[in-house]
């Protein structure tokens, strides 16, 4: 009989879990819709900004015979230090979302180490920070709260520090790693080289032949401002993209959890019924055999 009670209690607790996971799934899907809208809108801006930057860079590259002589575009021949900025969520319960990013970062660290390049890590999001702290890996910079609620000013401040390190020559390359949103059911790891900007990657959309005029007319003012904006926005956009991916991953994970819980309730119910039947049968046998012995 104790077994029966036990199973009943278990069914109740699994049902509660299913309720919780289902609620979390609903919350995530609502948040996802909002974040997706945000991402969709800022994607246009990001695309235009990149386009403009490309065009200016290419025009300037054409004007200069020996390539673009600007710190933001110059690839260092033998990089010694690389900064990796990576974005994870502040919270778990989202399947392999954080683990994937961390795995990729670890992979990159190993790769760079093989080339004798020093890696400095800059972490956004509690999960990533916790992981590397637990494994005694030094983090150069860390910020919590930004990945759950992307804020342009904060994102800009964070990435500006890294940009300063780059301009001062402390680091030779900045790479941004995050788990990006593809659609409701899939995410993919995105790895962007933020600085130096690689102009060859940018495709040429040259539809005008006239020479580019730039105002204010020393190139650096405009380019500096533009690059700053571009870097900041890349960071901000990655945060939004990562948040959307996080919500979609959590939605999936919670959906799976709810399904599993429901499945478990079914199995437990079958088990409960069997146990109950067994108890009844035992009782019946006891009564019948008692009667038999009375005869």
């Amino acid at each position, binding site marked *: 009989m104790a077994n029966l009670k036990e199973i009943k209690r278990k069914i109740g607790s699994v049902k509660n879990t299913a309720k919780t996971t289902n609620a979390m799934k609903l919350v995530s899907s609502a948040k996802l819709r909002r974040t997706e809208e945000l991402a969709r809108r800022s994607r246009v*801006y990001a695309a235009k900004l990149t386009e403009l930057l490309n065009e200016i860079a290419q025009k300037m590259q054409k004007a200069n015979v020996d390539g673009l002589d600007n710190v933001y575009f110059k690839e260092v021949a033998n990089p010694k230090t690389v900064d990796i900025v990576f974005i994870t969520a502040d919270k778990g319960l989202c399947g392999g979302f954080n683990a994937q990013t961390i795995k990729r970062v670890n992979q990159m660290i190993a790769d760079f180490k093989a080339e004798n390049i020093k890696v400095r890590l800059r972490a956004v999001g509690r999960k990533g920070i916790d992981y590397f702290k637990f494994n005694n890996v030094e983090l150069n910079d860390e910020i919590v709260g930004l990945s759950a609620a992307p804020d342009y000013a904060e994102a800009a401040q964070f990435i500006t520090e890294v940009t300063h390190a780059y301009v001062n020559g402390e680091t030779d390359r900045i790479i941004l790693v995050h788990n990006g949103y593809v659609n409701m059911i899939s995410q993919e790891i995105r790895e962007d080289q933020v600085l130096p900007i690689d102009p060859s990657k940018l495709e040429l959309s040259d539809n005008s032949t006239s020479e580019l005029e730039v105002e204010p007319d020393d190139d650096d003012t405009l380019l500096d401002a533009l690059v700053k904006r571009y870097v900041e926005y890349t960071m901000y956009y990655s945060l939004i993209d990562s948040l959307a991916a996080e919500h979609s991953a959590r939605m999936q994970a919670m959906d799976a959890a709810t399904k599993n819980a429901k499945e478990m309730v079914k199995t437990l119910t079958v088990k409960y019924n069997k146990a109950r039947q067994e108890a009844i049968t035992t009782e019946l046998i006891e009564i019948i055999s008692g009667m038999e012995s009375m005869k």
Partner: protein
Amino acid sequence: MELMKLEIVTPNGVIFDDEVRQVTLPGSEGEFGVLPKHATLVSLLQAGVIEIVKADGSKVAVAINSGYVKVDEEKTTCIVDGAVALSGEDTDLAQALSEAKELLKKAESSSTVIAAAVSKVENIGKSL
């Protein structure tokens, strides 16, 4: 009448995308007008008002805080940080005007630039 394409993009989305006759922009080195077939130009923009003459001759104004513009022969693209449209069928004008003033005041540290832009916004408010 020759036309060109004008796009105004903010981090919150595209706020203007249409064929226009003429556009006046608040460049950091001074205000300038753009007509179709303008030579390629990239400029910083400061706080001010973008004045647009649409294909049908009607005028539209958009207050911005800062950004960039890229002009070429067929297309003008403005990439701005913040913008408030000052005219349109469904906008509440009084509210849009105060929002625009707020935006301008926050954006610029130089008081002359603000004063010029705000007075422009007020003029537009009167003329509409």
